[in-house]
Every structure is written in structure tokens, then in C-alpha cells.
């Protein structure tokens, strides 16, 4: 059903292929990978929620992305393919927005255009799948529910859609034991009914026994497909893909090695039953007891000394035998010590690996970094002053010719600073549309003659365009300066004898924080837009669909915003912000030659604009 690029066949060493990866309906596929390997990203690509890059997914004949007929713009999302899956993001309950459970379910069902009867059936099934057997749950308001109940509501909405595929990203995170069992039961049922399920889960000991196939996603983007039994036999495959082999899998591996069939190792009860008891396991229990007691009184010098003596004796007088209990206790100690050393080395290696990785990333981004530091080298105050001066100059522009020069200057400055305004794309476009619309409305009210209207239109637009130029420059500032250095500069400007008044400090911190969190907010918005797109299955075309999408996204966004705000306040308080104490300042800013240069350059520019275009 899926063609995903970069994929690896089962046990072959280097048999990478890029075609022919197929998942069959009626199976559960577990997607495993280290943090940052891109599990969620891959899932979103499969769902068409982010640009596909190399991944070409298709549900049967429906490719998620189709070549656009216009050619130029590249790929277009295939609306029909969106109906093929039902997707649950991480923490899906955050995407709820309706005022009742039945509205939520209806929203997920709407794109499928079911008859009322089928829809009712699906609703009931979905509710009972999350353990709600009574109709009264339909009327409940998700906002008055506990976190666990909201998760159930969200999952019910996901299960309700009659899609042949389920894409689930960490569906059990934060759920209790009963919740885990409930979801496992539902997934098995769906599988038996022919639904295909792609699952991402941290709880590998919960998920792996469910999975028919496992997809190991390595940090380099390659993928290895294997069965769970193969994983029990080869836990090292996980390590090869950059993951840690979980403790439970190591134990399952040991069980398999000691003769328990691999199929049985997944089920603790069956594995325990199949495990052969050996005579020594009796003493194993005792050894463990000993080890436990030992770890209780750690760093017991005497004990250690005795142990060392024993080791010594053992080496010197080979034939001598100690009581078996003592010996085993010592072995246990030794293995544990070896193990410790091993772990230490391992963690050292891991840390090195992390640092190495970071190093390469550093190199990769050096280009970007250079752009960043170009203006960052200036005193923020000089940047501000320069901005104010140039803005003043731009403000003096009175006609379109002047404006053209001004625009050229702004663009030139942005290019010189290598500043990309891509991040603000949406804002800029909105502002432009808003300007034109407002000007048009204003013009239509200006007079009955077309000439008058035209003049009013261009006049208004001129004012807007001028403001826009200033805005463009202003938007660039937070991109080149960090909010904290901004804060520092403002604080120093308002300070008297090295101390700025409390109100100023507070206010400035607030402004700096708002700027710091703007990107976080944009990210949050995108996240909810994605969730709504996956649930509503509609591609925004036309203002009505756009408006609806906006409405559906806004509510969960605002709620998430409040939660985020709550956490931010908490974190700030724990850092000591808000106490009576006045913050010390680690660095004082200094004006240097180039700051003077920057400011005077800006001054010249402003004067030039002002003198040149004042008269029009």
C-alpha cells in the first residue's frame, strides 16, 4: 500500500532499495527509532501533513501527492488519499474543539459522507472501543473532562472514521494501565477487521508484542523491516539504528538464548512458564538477595576489603574452594562492577557521539551562522538607533518615486544583512492584502468620480506602503538580535546610575519574552492547523473553507496557549523572576567604532531621504 523510499530488506547487509516497500492491510506496523530520527516526521509525511521530500506514499491507487497540472508548483495534495487514513498526533486531545463528544465524532465522520445509520453505528463502536458503553457520553463536554477522558474522546474520534488505515503517534503516552489494555484490544480488533495500523510508541514492551512487523528507522534515514521474533534474536539491530536496546528486550533475548522459543518471549506469562528452572536458580534468588543487601549498604569499606582479599586468594591459590554461596555473591559483585565500568564507557562513547553529531551539524549550519552574526556583532542600541533613523527617513517619503527608492534601500539593507523575512511571510502577505482592501474601501467612499476614487486609492495605499517598508525593517530586527540582548539594551537605556526602575525592568522583560515566544506560537499554530487538516480532510480552497479552518484551529490553539502561558509563568518563577531581588547583569554593552559607523550611516540615509523627497 505504501511506497517509501530508503528502505532496507530484512537480513541482508547492504541491500538497500528504494521501491517496493508494501504494508498489507490487516497488520500492525510498529515504527521504531531514536529521538530525532524522524518517526513523527515520517508519519506526517505518510499522512501528507508535511512536504514529502523523498517519501512517496500511496494508499492503494491513491498517491498522497500528485504532480500538479500546472507543473511549476510541483506536488499537490491528493484530497482523496486523505480519506484513506485516520491520524492521531501526539497528545491528540489538544486538538479537540467542539462542545460535545458527539460533535467531535461528527466532525471526524463528516468527510466520509456516511448515511445516518452507518454514522450512528460507527459512533457507538468508537465509544465502546474507548470503554464508554452509554450514549450519555455523547453529550459530555470535552472541556469539563479530565485529561484521560479527553484522550479517550480524541481517540474515539480517530477510531470513528471508517478509514482503512490508522496512523497513531504515541497513543498511550500518559495513559494508565487500563488505557493501555483498552487500546491494545481495539487495535487487535481493527486488525482482524482488515484495518492497517502504523504505530509509533515509546512503550516498546507494550507495542512490540502487538506488532506484526517492525520498521526500524535509523538516524541516517534508512529503514529496516523485521518481525518481532527477529528482534528478539537480534536486539543489536536496534543499536545499529541508533537506539538503546530496552532492558526488557535484553531479558527477552536472554530468555530466547536459554531455550525459550522466540514467539513465546513476548508474553511474560508464557515466557515465564517456558523458562527452564535450573538448580542454580535457587541460589540465584539468594545471590540476588545478597546483592540487594549489598547495594543497600553501599561503599562499605570492610566488605570491599574482604572482597578484595577473596579475589587475591582466588588468584594465588587456585585449587582452593570457597563456599559456593560466597563465591556466587562475589561473582555477582564482580559482574556488577564490570557492568558499571562498561556502562561508564558506554555513556562516554555516547556522549562523544552526541558531540560529534553536534559538530557536524555545526558545520552544516555554519553558512547560516555567519548571517546571524553579521549584525549581532553590533551594540543592540546602535541597531535600534539606526532603525529609528532610517524609519524617520522613510516616513518623510511623499510620492511613489520616493517610495521606490525607499523600497530599494530597504531591500538593499535586507540583502546586505542577509536577512530572510521568510518567517514573517504570512504576516507580510496579510498586511499587503489588508492595505489594498482598506484602500479600496476608503476610495469607494471618497467620491463618485473615478478620478477622485483613483487618487484616494493611491494616496491611502501610499501611506500603507510606507508603513510596510518600516514594518519590514522592524521585522528584521528580532531575526538578527536575540530578545535577551534586546532586553539588555532597552534596560541599559532606561537605567539611571546602573539601576533601572522596577517597572521598566518588568515591562522590558515582558516585551522580550513576547518576542522570544513568537516563533513558539507560530509553531503551535502550525501544529493545530495540521491536526485539523488531518481530521477535517479538506484542503483550504476558497474563503469559506479557509474561515472554517481558521475557526477550528483557533480554539485548541488558544487553549494550548493558556497552558503554555501557565508553564512559562511557572518556569519564570522557579528561575527567581518576579522576586524582589533585582537581577544582576552579566555584561554591559559597549559602543564601539562600528556602532558609530552604523548609526551615522543610518543618519545620512535618513537625511538623504528626507531632503531628497520632502518636497515631493
Amino acid at each position, binding site marked *: 500500500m505504501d511506497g517509501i523510499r530508503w528502505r532496507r530488506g530484512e537480513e541482508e547487509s547492504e541491500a538497500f532499495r528504494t521501491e517496493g516497500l508494501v504494508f498489507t492491510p490487516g497488520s500492525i506496523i510498529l515504527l521504531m527509532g531514536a529521538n530525532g530520527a524522524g518517526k513523527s516526521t515520517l508519519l506526517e509525511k505518510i499522512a501528507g501533513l508535511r512536504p514529502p521530500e523523498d517519501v512517496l506514499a500511496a494508499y492503494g491507487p491513491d498517491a498522497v501527492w500528485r504532480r500538479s497540472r500546472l507543473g511549476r508548483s510541483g506536488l499537490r495534495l491528493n484530497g482523496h488519499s486523505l480519506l484513506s487514513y485516520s491520524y492521531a498526533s501526539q497528545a491528540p486531545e489538544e486538538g479537540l474543539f467542539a462542545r460535545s463528544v458527539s460533535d467531535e465524532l461528527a466532525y471526524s465522520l463528516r468527510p466520509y459522507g456516511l448515511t445516518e445509520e452507518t454514522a450512528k453505528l460507527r459512533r457507538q463502536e468508537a465509544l465502546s472501543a474507548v470503554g464508554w458503553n452509554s450514549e450519555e457520553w455523547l453529550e459530555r463536554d470535552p472541556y469539563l473532562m479530565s485529561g484521560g477522558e479527553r484522550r479517550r474522546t480524541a481517540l474515539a474520534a480517530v477510531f470513528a472514521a471508517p478509514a482503512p488505515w490508522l496512523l497513531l503517534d504515541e497513543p498511550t503516552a500518559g495513559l494508565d494501565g487500563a488505557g493501555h489494555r483498552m487500546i491494545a484490544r481495539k487495535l487487535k480488533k481493527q486488525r482482524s477487521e482488515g484495518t492497517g495500523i502504523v504505530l509509533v510508541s515509546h512503550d516498546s514492551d507494550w507495542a512490540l508484542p502487538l506488532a506484526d512487523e517492525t520498521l526500524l528507522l535509523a538516524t541516517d534515514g534508512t529503514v529496516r523491516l523485521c518481525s518481532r521474533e527477529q528482534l528478539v534474536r537480534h536486539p543489536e539491530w536496534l543499536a545499529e539504528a541508533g537506539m538503546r536496546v530496552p532492558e526488557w528486550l535484553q531479558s527477552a533475548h536472554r530468555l530466547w538464548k536459554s531455550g525459550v522459543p522466540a514467539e513465546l518471549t513476548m508474553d*511474560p506469562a508464557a515466557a515465564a512458564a517456558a523458562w527452564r528452572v535450573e538448580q542454580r536458580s535457587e541460589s540465584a534468588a539468594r545471590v540476588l538477595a545478597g546483592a540487594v543487601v549489598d547495594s543497600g549498604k553501599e561503599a562499605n569499606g570492610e566488605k570491599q576489603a574482604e572482597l578484595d582479599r577473596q579475589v587475591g586468594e582466588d588468584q594465588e591459590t587456585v585449587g582452593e574452594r570457597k563456599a559456593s554461596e560466597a563465591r556466587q555473591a562475589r561473582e555477582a559483585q564482580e559482574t556488577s562492577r564490570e557492568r558499571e565500568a562498561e556502562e561508564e564507557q558506554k555513556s562516554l562513547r555516547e556522549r562523544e557521539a552526541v558531540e560529534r553529531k553536534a559538530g557536524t551539524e555545526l558545520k552544516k549550519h555554519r553558512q547560516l551562522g555567519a548571517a546571524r552574526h553579521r549584525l549581532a556583532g553590533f551594540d543592540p542600541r546602535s541597531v535600534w538607533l539606526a532603525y529609528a533613523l532610517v524609519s524617520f527617513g522613510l516616513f518623510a517619503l511623499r510620492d511613489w518615486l520616493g517610495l521606490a527608492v525607499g523600497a530599494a534601500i530597504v531591500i538593499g539593507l535586507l540583502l546586505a544583512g542577509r536577512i530572510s523575512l521568510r518567517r514573517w511571510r504570512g504576516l507580510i502577505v496579510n498586511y499587503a492584502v489588508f492595505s489594498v482592501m482598506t484602500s479600496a474601501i476608503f476610495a469607494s467612499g471618497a467620491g463618485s468620480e473615478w478620478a477622485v476614487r483613483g487618487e484616494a486609492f493611491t494616496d491611502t495605499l501610499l501611506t500603507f506602503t510606507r508603513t510596510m517598508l518600516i514594518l519590514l525593517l522592524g521585522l528584521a530586527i528580532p531575526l538578527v538580535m536575540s530578545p535577551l540582548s534586546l532586553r539588555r539594551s532597552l534596560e541599559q537605556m532606561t537605567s539611571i546610575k546602573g539601576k533601572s526602575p522596577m517597572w521598566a525592568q518588568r515591562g522590558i522583560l515582558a516585551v522580550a519574552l513576547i518576542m522570544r515566544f513568537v516563533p513558539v506560537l507560530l509553531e503551535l499554530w502550525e501544529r493545530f492547523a495540521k491536526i485539523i487538516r488531518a481530521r477535517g480532510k479538506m484542503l483550504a480552497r476558497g474563503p469559506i473553507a479557509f474561515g472554517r479552518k481558521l475557526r477550528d484551529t483557533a480554539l485548541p490553539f488558544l487553549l494550548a496557549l493558556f497552558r503554555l502561558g501557565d508553564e512559562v509563568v511557572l518556569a519564570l518563577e*522557579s528561575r527567581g523572576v518576579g522576586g524582589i531581588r533585582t537581577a544582576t547583569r552579566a555584561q554591559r554593552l559597549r559602543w564601539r567604532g562600528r556602532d558609530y559607523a552604523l548609526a551615522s550611516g543610518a543618519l545620512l540615509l535618513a537625511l538623504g531621504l528626507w531632503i531628497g523627497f520632502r518636497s515631493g
Partner: protein
Amino acid sequence: MRGNRSLMEAADVDKESGPGAAVFDRSDRGGAPLEVDCVTVHGGEGEDETAVRLQQATLTLAAGEWLTVVGVNGSGKSTLSRLLAGLMPESMSGVVRRGFAGDGVSPIVLQQPRAQLFGETPREEVVFALEWRGVPAERISDVTEEALHRAGLAALADEPWERLSGGQQQMAAFAAATAYPSPLLVMDEATSMLDEDNRDVVMTRARELHADGTAVVWVTQRLDELGPDDRVVAVGEGRIIYDGRGREFLYGSADGDSGSVSGQADSGAIGPGTVGRLEAGAGGGEEVSDGGVWPLSPCLRAGLRLSYLMELALELRRLGKLRDPLPVTEREWQIVWGNAGK
């Protein structure tokens, strides 16, 4: 707003010690324990009035202690941990004596890095934290270097967040929270978004701090983060339902000694034996066998999922293939397998 009360108290301390003076102020109460006495916290305004986040919680934390708090989502463990950190909610009854932790808000590391990073780079973040802790300006750069180095972020100190992984961001938040010593550190599910490697780094660092005498409150849902000898407090539906050692929490108390369970009959505390019979039908059935009733895991009472290894251990015990104490750590399992033949 939240925390007004603690801020007022913080102000008093500052008047005594003078602004910018020692931040690590144990004041005259030295090693007095932190006490939460019969505290009830009500849910947020506007919601159902009956929503109770924490009910008659009583807890004592000694200076330098390691306390693991477990519970499912919405159990009240976050409320409890924030209380311990000194963030007093508005609708609260009962008494909190902060004892050794002092009156200021203790450093706290939260689940989401994005909510707790205020600078643009790890270095800015640490500097920001130190500035607001009132550390003298001339010491800041040294302390910052040291904190970054300890967190393994020295090479990444000036990288913006977009270029750091979630784990690295969390380490930066951690470095900022712990850059200056504090008698108490609260980790509120700080590792839940991290993979095992990153989690180990954070965990190791927290254990180091603990070894140096800092009390640590470690809040988690992941049972594999429990040490067998850690003190574990389990929270369920706003109540403290267990307070004892890790191994007994997972497997039930070996000798039927119920002393480890918090003794408040009215707060719903139930002894291990009782739990066994209560939960036997709901997935804990393996505990009641022909061999008799085994002590049952209080963990089930807290509603947490038994991990594969726990189920395996319990099953082995039921079959008589393994005896108490049952293994908890990786090392202990190694011993079991190591002795059980190759």
C-alpha cells in the same frame, strides 16, 4: 496569580540577607524537613467545583532526600511536585512548611523545553537564570561555563534552539535550573520527551546533584526510572496512595509488612494485601494463585501499567522460579540470567 504567597515570603528573606547576597540560603532552619500537612488543592476556577487536584496530602521530605513521585496523567502528581517546589496554588487549604528548602521557589525542570527556555542559546539561558538568582555579575561567566560544561553543552553553548535536539534543549533547561546550587530541585516529568540516552544523561546529572546533598523530587510515569531503594510516593486521583521503597512499590512488600504504606485511613491508603484482592480481577489476577496470595504490587493500585519485566518477575515468582526480592534494575536482571545458565 499563582505564587503570590511564596513571593511575599521570598521578600522577607531578602530583607534579612540583603539583596544580591547568598542565594543558597538555608537560613536558620538548616536541616528542618519540608512538610506538606494535610493539603487540599481545588481545581481551576470556572470548572466543576468538585474537581480536586490534591486531597489531604501529607508528606515529609528530609534535606538531601531523593523522592520519586509516580502516577498517571491527572493524578495530582504535578500539583504535589509544584507544591514541594514552593509554588502555592490559589485554592489551597492546609499547611506547607518549607523547612530546608527555604522560602523562595526552588528550581524546577518541566516536561516541555519550549515553555522554560527564555534565551536564544544555552549560554544566554544559563546567564539569564543566574542574573535572576542575583549572582554577582563578575562571577556569572565562570559559573556559566562550568554549568554548560557539566551539562555537556560546552560545544553547543552558542547554538540557537532550532539547531539543538529536544534532549539538548532539555539539558539546557536543566543546566539553567541547576547552575547555582539550591537545596531542592524538582524534576517534573523532565525526561518524558527524551529517548533513553538523553534520559540517562539527565538522570545521571540529577543523581550527582543528589550525591552532593541536594534533595531531588523526581516526578515520572516511567517505572523503569525507579531505583529499588528510592523512596517512592504514588499519587492517584489526588491522593497519596503509597509511600515507601521502590522494590516494594513494584512487587509488593515481601514480608507482608504494611508499614510502608502511608497510614492515613481517610485518604484512601490501602495496604498491599488489600490491594491484591481488590485488583485481582483487573489484570492483576496472576497474584492470586493456587500457591496462595502473594503480596500485590501497589503499582497496580496507582493505575500504572506493569512493564514486561515486572510481569515476568511476578509470573516467575508465582511459578516458584524466582523468589523475593525480585529483580528491579538491569544489573539485578543480569544476575538472574547470569546464574540461570547460558
